[in-house]
């Protein structure tokens, strides 16, 4: 029933990430020379028990839901467990969640084709799968009770893990019926509940299952792994991207008490020690000479100047780099009557800056490879590990732990810090566990940033102030460049949010183009990906157009949504405007700004109340309305909106990574300022009622906050914001 993942499965209706992750799968498989499905099933444990790979039921009737998705804050474990518990009619208060092993042919993300978490897809891709699993298990208990009590199955009800037959007065818990239920052959397509009859999904009873462990210090993260005979490794990394080790002198490092050995590995020089502090001191004592002949030495000032020139038709484009169209209709070269609006926008490199710096534990010996860490795309981590240790990917065991945040950082096609740990563990050998610890400085300077990005727009408006022509140029690195098959055409992740925007749908003439230069700086998805910059450009531009037209920004947007048929945008905008009291004056001393953006299948509208204190924006309250389909865990949707606002606001206010001669200048939280408690707004979340399948909430709360703040400042003093962050230090 669990068919192996085949390359052809990846073709139909594939999304961008699906294709690329699929390609990684195929690429890795080719390397070891047989079909990916087969490879990934080798080493997989198949004894899932009577209720399948997603449900375990103990002798006392306690239900454990197996999550194929990592939990690093998004609250997906709560939502995934609730989907099963709803259909199973399990006692929610006793439901537990366990993390699945890495077994792609069982636990693949149905939207990706490999096992992995990302693109705010955990709930969405699991919705039918877990409802079916829960309903199937419920049917087994019902059938077992019907047979045991000799009553019709249709007369049996289940509530809170208790199976009852009212007429006969018989009832039994899941535990009592376990042996009988386990013998029932599960039906392939059990009847699912009518969502109108849901008693758990959509209620505030759906709460996190990990809050206690995460409040008493017992939640286990990679940093907390301590195994017998384990050593700790730190790596001296190159000061510039692309530099290599010429030579090193470990004499002083080896004199540090506790240092065990020093090894050269592809990414630098690793110091292996008995404990973390010895590894750190050993690394400090190490002398490394770097070969920087192939290193990236450009600074961000130079890059920004180049990007601006290229978007403005000046300067010489790098060899083989061409403008590519992402959206075109009508003839943008034909002169159009009307007022012209032009603007440029600049966005810096951003670090994910997760609270837990990247780390990994690896045990490698002949025939065994085990990784213990917060693996976001286990299949890719298995493939990359397999290449190094010469094993079949399916035989690489991964125990996935909680991770202290990701925001995109751990979904990395190169498995950068993972392979670094594997290389060290291979050198150490004999299956001795190695914990690779990155310091904050390692984490900040390793790259994988949100790319530096430049936008240039030229818009012609009609007599009512609405766009008749929209020319849009984007310069940004491709996120796909480092993938196994770099996209030959448009890398949608660079322009998503501009591409497909309702404002472009409502504009007759559109010419959208993207230029994707190649740099030595590694870049990666950063919570909400392309929307981190496109939402700002679209939403702040629209507000400026509305104000030029003398129209209310909400009314102006609604008129454009009407033209574009963007009914979901209109619905969340109306809801947030109502909740924020948009038609009333803003609270005294505060200015208000609005923004709306669709990402990952969800549409979010936000109204931010802002004032300037010594020129620095202070955000007091943020009203948020979200359409994410049917709401599984309303309180966790609210939590993701609160978190998304803070993450987006932190970047908009302060986030900026700069390079000086190619070297990262911000190495810790002293240089890379992030939002703190006193700077956090109060977020109120309103969920649009919906009967549609659930869509994601991990990322969609991020994009609107930056432009909402910019629009509030625009409303306050007429000043547009043409580069982020707002606060320059």
């Amino acid at each position: 029933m669990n068919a192996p993942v085949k390359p052809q499965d990846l073709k139909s209706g594939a999304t961008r990430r699906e294709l690329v992750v699929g390609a990684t799968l195929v690429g890795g498989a080719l390397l070891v020379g047989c079909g990916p499905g087969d490879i990934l099933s080798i080493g997989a444990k198949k004894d899932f028990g009577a209720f399948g790979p997603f449900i375990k039921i103990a002798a006392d009737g306690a239900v454990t839901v197996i999550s194929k998705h990592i939990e690093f804050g998004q609250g997906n474990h709560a939502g995934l467990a609730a989907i099963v518990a709803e259909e199973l009619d399990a006692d929610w208060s006793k439901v537990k969640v366990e993390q699945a092993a890495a077994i792609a042919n069982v636990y693949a993300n149905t939207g990706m084709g490999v096992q992995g978490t990302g693109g705010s897809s955990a709930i969405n891709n699991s919705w039918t799968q877990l409802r079916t699993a829960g309903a199937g298990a419920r049917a087994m208990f019902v059938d077992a009770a019907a047979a045991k009590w000799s009553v019709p199955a249709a007369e049996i009800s289940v509530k809170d893990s208790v199976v009852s037959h009212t007429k006969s007065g018989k009832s039994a818990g899941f535990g009592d019926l376990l042996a009988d239920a386990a013998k029932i052959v599960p039906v392939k397509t059990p009847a699912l509940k009518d969502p109108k009859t849901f008693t758990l999904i959509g209620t505030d009873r759906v709460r996190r299952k990990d809050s206690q462990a995460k409040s008493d210090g017992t939640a286990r993260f990679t940093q907390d792994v301590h195994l017998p005979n384990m050593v700790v490794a730190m790596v001296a990394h190159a000061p510039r991207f692309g530099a290599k080790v010429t030579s090193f002198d470990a004499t002083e490092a080896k004199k540090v008490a506790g240092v065990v050995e020093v090894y050269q590995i592809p990414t630098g020089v690793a110091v292996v020690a008995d404990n973390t502090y010895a590894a750190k001191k050993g690394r400090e004592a190490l002398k490394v000479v770097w070969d920087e002949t192939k290193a990236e030495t450009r600074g961000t000032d130079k890059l920004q100047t180049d990007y601006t020139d290229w978007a403005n038709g000046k300067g010489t484009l790098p060899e083989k780099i061409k403008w590519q169209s992402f959206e075109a209709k009508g003839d943008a070269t034909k002169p159009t009557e009307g007022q012209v609006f032009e603007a440029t926008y600049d966005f810096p490199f951003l670090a994910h800056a997760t609270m837990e710096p990247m780390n990994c534990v690896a045990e490698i010996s002949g025939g065994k490879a085990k990784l213990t860490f917060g693996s976001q795309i286990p299949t890719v981590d298995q493939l990359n590990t397999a290449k190094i240790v010469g094993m079949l990917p399916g035989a690489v065991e991964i125990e996935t732990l909680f991770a202290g945040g990701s925001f995109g950082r751990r979904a990395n096609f190169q498995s950068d810090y993972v392979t670094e740990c594997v290389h060290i563990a291979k050198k150490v050998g004999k299956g001795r566990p190695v914990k690779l610890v990155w310091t904050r400085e390692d984490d900040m300077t390793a790259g994988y940033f949100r790319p530096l990005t430049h936008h240039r727009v030229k818009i012609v408006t009609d007599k009512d102030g609405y766009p008749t022509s929209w020319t849009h140029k984007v310069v940004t690195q491709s996120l796909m460049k480092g993938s196994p098959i770099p996209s030959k055409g448009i890398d949608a992740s660079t322009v998503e949010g501009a591409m497909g925007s309702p404002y472009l749908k409502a504009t007759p003439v559109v010419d959208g183009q993207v230029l994707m230069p190649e740099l030595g700086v590694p870049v990666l998805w950063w919570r909400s990906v392309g929307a981190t910059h496109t939402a700002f450009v679209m939403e702040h531009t629209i507000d400026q157009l509305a104000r030029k037209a003398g129209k209310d920004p909400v009314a102006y947007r609604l008129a454009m949504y009407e033209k574009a048929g963007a009914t979901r945008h209109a619905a969340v905008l109306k809801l947030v405007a109502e909740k924020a009291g948009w038609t009333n004056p803003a609270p005294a001393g505060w200015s208000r700004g609005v923004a709306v953006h669709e990402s990952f299948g969800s549409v979010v509208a936000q109204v931010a109340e802002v004032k300037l204190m010594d020129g620095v924006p202070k955000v007091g309250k943020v009203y948020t309305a979200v359409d994410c389909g049917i709401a599984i865990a309303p309180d966790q949707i609210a939590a993701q909106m609160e978190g998304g606002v803070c993450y987006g606001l932190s970047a908009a206010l302060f986030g900026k990574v700069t390079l000086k001669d190619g070297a990262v200048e911000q190495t810790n939280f002293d240089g890379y300022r992030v939002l703190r408690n006193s700077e956090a707004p109060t977020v109120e979340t309103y969920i649009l009622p919906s009967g549609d399948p659930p869509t994601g909430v991990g990322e969609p709360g991020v994009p609107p906050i930056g432009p909402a703040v910019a629009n509030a400042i625009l409303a306050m003093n007429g000043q547009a914001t043409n580069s982020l962050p707002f606060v320059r230090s």
Partner: protein
Amino acid sequence: MAMTLEVNGKSIAIAADPDTPLLWVLRDEVGLTGPKFGCGIGQCGACTVLVDGSPIRSCSMPISGLAGMKISTIESLGGNHALQLAWVKNDVPQCGYCQSGQLMSAAALLAAKPKPTDADIDAAMDGNICRCGTYQRIRSAIKEAAGMPAAAKV
């Protein structure tokens, strides 16, 4: 070289060098994993523990100066501290990595000011970064644990 530290009410003989930051002694030698490593320079607060009741960043505090002082980590709160109950009730944590430090800063705050104002909370909690953005729930939970109405700050 050996010294003794008092951690969560127990005297523990420590073999580490005196210049070793308390965090690494707690984690690697004492075996307490509640206090977390985040930045190593006292900027993020994930490593916060109490020394004689005052919150300190253990990542940048050498053990040499801590002889005879009472060190308390998240493990000392016991799991049912009023703050921990409020944290769970409000589902404060997301990724959870910063929360041990957040709770220790909050515990020190409530010990000093049982009914903290918003300004008190700002001052006590600004040293603890949360990248998931759980700040407003942290504020609500502190107020709830203090028996105050959890109204939003103004």
